[in-house]
């Protein structure tokens, strides 16, 4: 009441009119917008077709994820000299369905003192983030993927970094100590390995020159070579970080059933638990897809185009698509198999060792690799072994040989750097702690003692 001048008055006088006009504008605008934008073509382009694609992809990926669980169980059974599921359907093929039904009809428990909203939200975040990124994966030539966005790789990285919120919030909302510890571990782990995975991808970007997933595949297609040849150190860092990123053994800190019971999902049951479970496997698929795309040529296999060219014109595209999807699936499968293999072979890291691995090994390796790869690239460019034509790299066989050899040689300086950094590290330099690690222990021959009289 005392303030009767200055901007206040202006604001008081002006705001109703301004607000009114705004609201008016909005409501006047809405019908006009609807009529002008919801044209049949637009609707088809932006709504119907994507929905169909998404539906198909969801069904396919969900089935794949379900069978990935079966594959994991079968592979682990094979590794562990046992049979695995074989009762439900032939070869246990109906096992995923049985599991799904079991989890669906199980009682869904929300702990009494849990934060109900967040508790419910957490698995949804996990699931959504795991599935959204499926949209940008290059399953095959560009018409076989849902969308090909400009920043595909960055999109995947950022969305999967949001996905970890599901784990953290789930652990926190359970209002229980083991989940909380799991959530704490998970958040620290994610931040560390997110950095490593991001940096190792940067070195790959020097060759891909785009974030677009299709673009990455095309870059390898135009060169006729897979980037794993040029980027071997980066590939190794990527695989290790990817396992950590998906929270799988030997990096399954957040679950660690022998330490934290079940970690973040200790309090989850029934369908909510199964959502976490599906999200974990979907994440595996996504991460292996990134690996396959970045390093193994995505859906591209050298010689593919030649085979397609031999076919009649009408079948060419279809054949390419079919081959592409198959190749992509096989590559993802190989990486997934590697993940499964690692899980059932290695013991679990300890939390601090995991951090050390992330910050003292993978990060420096990734950083050094960026510098080295950039140097190699610039030298190659100066030598005329590689040209950039309209943002696309071109090189002859000399260039390919040069980059392959240089990429492999880059291992040595990286290893030297890691050695220099970790020479005094306690939990990795085990030899500093014991002079010898005996293969078997000393044996003593005790003689039967003399009994007292």
């Amino acid at each position, binding site marked *: 009441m005392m303030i009767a001048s200055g901007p206040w008055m202006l*604001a008081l006088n002006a705001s109703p009119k301004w607000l009114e006009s705004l609201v008016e504008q909005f409501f006047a605008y809405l019908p006009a917008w609807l009529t002008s934008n919801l044209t049949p073509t637009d609707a088809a382009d932006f709504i119907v077709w994507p929905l169909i694609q998404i539906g198909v992809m969801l069904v396919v990926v969900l089935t794949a994820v379900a069978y990935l669980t079966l594959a994991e169980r079968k592979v682990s059974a094979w590794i562990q000299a046992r049979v695995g599921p074989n009762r439900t359907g032939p070869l246990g093929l109906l096992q995923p369905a049985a599991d799904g039904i079991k989890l669906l009809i199980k009682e869904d428990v929300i702990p009494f003192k849990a934060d109900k909203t967040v508790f419910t939200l957490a698995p949804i975040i996990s699931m959504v983030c795991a599935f959204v990124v499926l949209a940008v994966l290059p399953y095959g030539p560009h018409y076989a993927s849902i969308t090909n966005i*400009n920043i595909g790789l960055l999109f995947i990285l*950022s969305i999967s970094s949001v996905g970890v919120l599901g784990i953290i919030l789930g652990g*926190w909302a359970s209002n229980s100590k083991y989940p909380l510890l799991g*959530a704490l571990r998970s958040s620290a782990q994610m931040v560390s390995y997110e950095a490593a995975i991001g940096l190792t991808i940067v070195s790959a970007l020097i060759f891909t*020159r785009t974030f677009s997933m299709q673009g990455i595949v095309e870059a390898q297609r135009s060169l006729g070579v897979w980037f794993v040849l040029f980027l071997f150190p980066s590939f190794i860092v990527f695989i290790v970080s990817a396992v950590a990123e998906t929270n799988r053994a030997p990096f399954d800190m957040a679950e660690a059933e022998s330490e934290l019971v079940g970690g973040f999902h200790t309090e989850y049951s029934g369908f909510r638990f199964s959502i976490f479970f599906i999200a974990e496997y979907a994440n595996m698929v996504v991460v292996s897809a990134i690996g396959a795309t970045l390093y193994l040529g995505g859906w591209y296999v050298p010689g593919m185009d030649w085979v397609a060219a031999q076919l009649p014109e009408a079948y060419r595209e279809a054949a390419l698509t079919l081959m592409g999807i198959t190749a992509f699936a096989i590559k993802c499968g190989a990486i997934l198999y590697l993940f499964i293999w690692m899980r059932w072979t290695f013991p679990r890291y300890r939390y601090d060792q995991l951090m050390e691995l992330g910050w003292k090994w993978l990060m420096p390796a990734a950083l050094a690799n960026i510098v080295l790869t950039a140097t190699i690239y610039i030298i190659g460019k100066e030598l005329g072994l590689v040209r950039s034509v309209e943002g696309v790299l071109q090189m002859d066989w000399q260039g390919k040989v040069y980059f392959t050899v240089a990429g492999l040689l880059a291992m040595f300086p990286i290893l030297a750097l890691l050695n220099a950094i970790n020479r005094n590290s306690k939990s990795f330099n085990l030899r500093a702690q014991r002079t010898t690690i005996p293969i078997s222990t000393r044996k003593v021959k005790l003689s039967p003692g003399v009994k007292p009289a």
Partner: protein
Amino acid sequence: MLLVGWEALFFWLLTLSALFAAVFTVSTRNPVHCALFLISTLIATAGLFLLLRAEFVAGAQILVYVGGILVLFLFVLMLVNTRSEVENPFNRQDKAGAFIAALVGLALLGAVTYTQQRGGFFKTKPSADRLAIENARPDPNAPAGVISADTETLGVTLYTRAVLPFEIASVLLLMAIVGSVLLARDRRQEETYD
């Protein structure tokens, strides 16, 4: 800025959700909920960046702020006992803070209205080339393997025109890292590792 078509719809959706989430961020009692609303705000802002055709910035926003900073926020929130703040209602200090915040908010609103009345930034006309960029639909069949203009522009700008601020920021961050490590390093750790 001209808002047309789908962009307008998404603009309004994102803006309103960002605003509401921002209000909830400061008004919610539970710190973890605050962090959640802050995340919503950030994601909505990332969407606004996308509308501005700044895809890289949008991606980086989510990656850095949500995936990195907010996760660390949550990490600390879970470690620290925050229950006392949840349980205690407003105290005098909070009231004073609320009053000041309300004052500042009103002042801002007034300023915005004032500039708007004077033909402020709401009515600036975008330049022709900017309009062209904005109104260009991405070509779905564009040749792949070409680096994004946005990313390239950003990179070039960062390392040419903005190199000094960039370096200053990096030195600042380095200082922050060293400082926090020094603060967090206690005697026990030093005994263990030295």
